[in-house]
């Protein structure tokens, strides 16, 4: 592959001389970092989707461990009845922060890491449509994540990850924990929305020539659908959080029943977001599995159009079932029935996917690599979680299960056995792409089996606990309820699961540093990301490939002659690369300051009580950054890769 020599020449636009001046930021406030700048500056100011993807992944793994430690503390407390390892308040903070961390800071950004890194390569593009906006998404995610974890040093939120009003209003939650939670989620929402507009535009507009929509890899399809879910679901929670914030700080009564407010409205608005959110977590996972299974069965995906369509169908239906989280709040017969039946319908498109995955295995040549093992584990465990979901969709059954440990079992089966297993599958599968190094197979398999065993030991007993009447979110329980043994097993399993996840993360870090180098296409894979160097050059492809078939890389190796294709024309003036920029990060920093200042509104921040000024300064930084960002333009330089 291209051993590219890169020459930097000024952007040649042919139109005006302004472009040829040295690339400096507006007002020359900060030098716009150039190629060959210090690595730290390079990473902070990068607009390269691959570096951004790696940072998303690194932060996500970090927060996976943070959320995991929180989970293990939860389980340690529940090991024995009437245990006092943690206080009630701390326990309540732990499960709130655990849920929030795992969903918003671990699984979503891990998905985003692969969207960023792999989706772009899969469509044969050089970068996203708006590279600086992409960097802004990353840094805003970091800002939100840091903000919510800072809350541990003051007061962490203790209202559950769905923050039901009125418990989350000032009357019942007077501390600043709720404010940390509200503002962090708002900032994380900005990050997710910005990233999603970017991905939608990129996928629709920037595919390689010949890559029709129905030739796109399924992972790219799921990225597209997930991005749509994000832009259509997040507004609901944003507005709900705004209303809650007004209740807490500006004296309104949106959720105060004594003034005619309806706490139930919070639940509706939250779940209008919340249910699509769970598909936001799982669809990318399904996309990963749809890449891994064909590769290691050495067969194309069975029923590709159906898998794609069922993904879209799941996404669409996902907006029509939110009240299945509210079967016990007294909705009335018609609404309850409608939401119950709609929920059941989702089993059909999901089933279609599972059947087609099995169809993919059928008649293949199955290579038992680590990523394959994780994907198979995914199918099996996710299916089980899906089935308990179907139990929940039946109203009378859910009347017993709602808010019990059965629900905790359901969603950990879909979230760990589902999302997390698939994400680890993705990590092991794509690590050679991202680092140019192979993960160790033996250790990978050992980790998988530890995880698989620990996971089932931790969460299977929770089904039984739920049916035996143990409510979730209780920091303690009496010893004579018949729950003791299962809780002990469960805690033991959680610790084993923790070891499994920890060991896998260690392997990731180890591989990154010292892994065994590998060639360009170690898995004999199918899709476009494997048609370039490991890791890819800054510009991804020296020449944008032309696409004549669904699995182009496979077709090039083994396909019919008419399906094969070569790289397209070289760019006449070299490849245009956008410049690095400071402003995405400074804009996110402004956002962070606004958030922090608002959390500390009327409070004292480290001895400083001008927190309102902090909001203004943060807002100023944000605004100024946006202006400077707009004025500096993408700019860029040209690269002339030596042909391969």
């Amino acid at each position, binding site marked *: 592959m291209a051993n590219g020599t890169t020459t930097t020449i000024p952007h040649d636009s042919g139109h005006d001389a302004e472009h040829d001046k040295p690339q400096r930021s507006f007002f020359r406030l900060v030098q716009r970092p150039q190629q060959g700048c210090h690595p730290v500056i390079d990473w902070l100011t990068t607009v390269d989707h691959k570096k951004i993807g790696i940072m998303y992944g690194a932060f996500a793994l970090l927060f996976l461990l943070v959320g995991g430690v929180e989970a293990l503390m939860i389980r340690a407390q529940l090991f024995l009845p009437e245990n006092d390892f943690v206080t009630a308040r701390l326990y309540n903070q732990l499960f709130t922060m655990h849920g929030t961390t795992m969903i918003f800071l671990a699984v979503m950004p891990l998905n985003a890491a692969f969207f960023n890194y792999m989706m772009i390569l899969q469509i044969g593009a050089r970068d996203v449509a708006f590279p600086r906006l992409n960097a802004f998404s990353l840094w805003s995610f970091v800002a939100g994540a840091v903000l919510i974890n800072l809350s541990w040093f003051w007061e962490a939120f203790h209202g559950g990850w769905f923050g039901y009003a009125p418990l989350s209003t000032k009357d019942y939650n007077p501390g600043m924990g709720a404010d940390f939670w509200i503002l962090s989620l708002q900032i994380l929402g900005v990050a997710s929305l910005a990233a999603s507009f970017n991905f939608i535009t990129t996928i629709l507009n920037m595919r390689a020539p010949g890559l029709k929509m129905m030739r796109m890899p399924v992972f790219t399809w799921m990225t597209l659908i997930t991005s749509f879910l994000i832009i259509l679901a997040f507004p609901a929670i944003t507005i709900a959080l705004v209303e809650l914030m007004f209740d807490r700080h500006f004296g309104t009564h949106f959720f105060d029943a004594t003034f005619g407010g309806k706490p139930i409205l919070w639940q509706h608005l939250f779940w*209008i977001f919340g249910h699509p959110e769970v598909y936001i977590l799982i669809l990318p996972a399904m996309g990963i599995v749809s890449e891994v299974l064909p590769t290691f069965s050495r067969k194309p995906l069975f029923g590709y159009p159906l898998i794609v369509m069922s993904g879209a169908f799941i996404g669409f239906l996902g907006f029509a079932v939110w009240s299945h989280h509210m079967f016990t709040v007294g909705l009335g017969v018609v609404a309850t029935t409608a939401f119950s039946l709609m929920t059941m319908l989702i089993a059909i498109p999901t089933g279609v996917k599972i059947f087609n995955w099995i169809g993919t295995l059928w008649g293949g040549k199955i290579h038992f690599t680590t990523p394959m093992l994780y994907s198979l584990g995914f199918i099996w465990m996710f299916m089980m979680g899906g089935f308990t979901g179907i139990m929940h969709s039946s109203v009378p059954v859910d009347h017993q299960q709602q808010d019990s440990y059965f629900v905790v079992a359901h969603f950990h089966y879909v979230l760990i056995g589902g999302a997390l297993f698939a994400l680890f599958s993705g990590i092991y599968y794509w690590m050679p792409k991202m680092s140019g190094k192979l993960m160790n197979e033996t250790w990978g398999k050992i980790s998988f089996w530890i995880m698989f065993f620990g996971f089932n030991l931790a969460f299977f007993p929770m089904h039984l606990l739920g049916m035996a009447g143990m409510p979730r979110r209780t920091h303690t329980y009496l010893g004579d309820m018949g729950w003791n043994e299962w809780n002990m097993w469960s805690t033991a399993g959680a610790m084993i699961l923790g070891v499994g996840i920890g060991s896998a993360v260690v392997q990731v870090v180890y591989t990154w540093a010292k892994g065994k180098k590998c060639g360009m296409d170690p898995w004999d894979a199918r899709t476009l990301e494997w048609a370039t160097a490991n890791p890819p050059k800054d510009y991804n492809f020296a020449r944008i490939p032309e696409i004549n078939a669904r699995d182009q890389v496979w077709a090039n190796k083994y396909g019919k002659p008419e399906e094969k294709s070569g790289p397209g024309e070289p760019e006449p003036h070299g490849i245009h690369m956008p410049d690095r920029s400071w402003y995405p990060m400074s804009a996110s920093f402004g956002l962070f300051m606004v958030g922090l200042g608002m959390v500390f509104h009327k409070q004292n921040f480290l001895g400083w009580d001008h927190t309102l000024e902090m909001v203004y300064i943060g807002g100023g930084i944000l605004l100024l950054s946006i202006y400077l960002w707009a004025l500096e333009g993408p700019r860029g330089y040209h690269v002339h890769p030596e042909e391969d």
Partner: protein
Amino acid sequence: MSETTRKPNFSPASKKTIEGESTRFFTFFNVILTLIGLTFLELILIILPFHEYVLLTGLIVLSIIKFGLVIWYFMHLRWDQIFLTALFMLGLILASGTVAALYLLFPAGESAANKEAPAAQSGAH
């Protein structure tokens, strides 16, 4: 080009564009006249002696027409790729569906404030 436009660097637009945009110029005026007319109709509706539901339907139809006129002409959907219309409709339909479903989920006049809630009576927090 004139004195003031000398600094920004614009080449003359093609003849076709200029012709097209000039035709649109009049379309835009027709649209705004219709919009203003419809708004007047909305205001007149208030004083008409029809049944509430008739008026309500009228109001909704009128706003949908106005809405449509703006996105179709002012926002150029008429002249742009159909894909953009589909994209926007996705959001619009989902949003309207959600508004409608939510609205129907809350029965009229059933709030605590109208009924002297038990919470209010007991006086506790």
